[in-house]
């Protein structure tokens, strides 16, 4: 990854963290609500990784269908199944995000 990209990500992290810190300071109920931060972080990482993986899977499926249209039906079934299995990991992150956000 380029240096610019890393700086961009750091800036975005700082920007997203700033409201959380500000809210914690305003509320005055013992600092940052780490549950909210953790939930947002969990779902963000899971969505990013899941989107990347789904993109790769879809690209491979499209390539296979383009090369061999006769096998399109079988490839489509497998692709949908794989996408759902990838997505379910993101959904676990969503469930965990829901369960930690109140803490």
């Amino acid at each position, binding site marked *: 990854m380029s240096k610019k990209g890393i700086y961009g990500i750091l800036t975005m992290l700082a920007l997203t963290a700033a409201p959380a810190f500000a809210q914690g300071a305003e509320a005055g109920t013992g600092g940052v609500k780490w549950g909210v931060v953790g939930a947002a972080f969990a779902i963000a990482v899971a969505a990013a990784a899941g989107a990347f993986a789904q993109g790769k899977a879809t690209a491979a499926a499209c390539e296979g269908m383009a090369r061999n249209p006769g096998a399109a039906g079988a490839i489509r079934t497998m692709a*949908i199944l794989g996408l759902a299995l990838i*997505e*379910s990991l993101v*959904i676990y992150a969503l469930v965990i995000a829901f369960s930690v956000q109140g803490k």
Partner: protein
Amino acid sequence: MEHSILYEPVNRLLTALLGAPPVGRLSPGWRAFLFPDGEKAWLQDNVIMAFLLFAALAVILPLARRGLRKRGPGWFQNLNEMIILAVRDLIDDVVGHGAGKKYLPLLGTFAYFILLSNLMGFFFFLTPPTSSFQTTLALAITSFIYFNAEGIREHGVVGYLKHFMGPILFLAPLMFVIEIISILARIVSLSLRLAGNVGGEHLATGIFFGMVPILVPWPMMLLGLIGALLQTFIFVILSTIYIAGAVAHEEH
């Protein structure tokens, strides 16, 4: 958390008939499990909605059965035939030819129940039963018991347990533990996937609906329609694959 329109009347009726739920006599764990809303409610939204769907299916489908025709079927018969044939062909493809008829009753019921309850999310006054973890856990446990029972019926208890041993005797104790954990994880993954997807879409649509009640939630609702069909397909095909794995004969 919003409730469906039936939540108030049903619970008021049950409270009038039976009195308040006996929350005081239960231990805290059972109370949280059975009556999360405390003294206010006998039944949760998902249970009421599941009963509603069950009653609707139990009335509509036998009535539709009477009107079955070989020539010139109506649109309702065509729709039902499409769903049922899709499930049967799926089972034929995955498990083996001729298996479709055998496993159709349960898997077809899954398809109907999950599809219709996912589609309930489109009506703001209803709550999809599959958006709650309890309903999908019940479905997943049903699927789990079914594929294990089919495996035992096919191979016998000893033969079925041999499935888990793996090919090498030396590694058998390790493989056995891993396999048991992995088939128990199927319950969790089946139920969490369904509940998370349907619930998440319902929640997101609700948030968009709260912002602007027209035009803005429509893309999300389209996504919800695709998701409803997709999650039904995924649940049914995963159950079918588990059954296929349980009844398969190993060739050496």
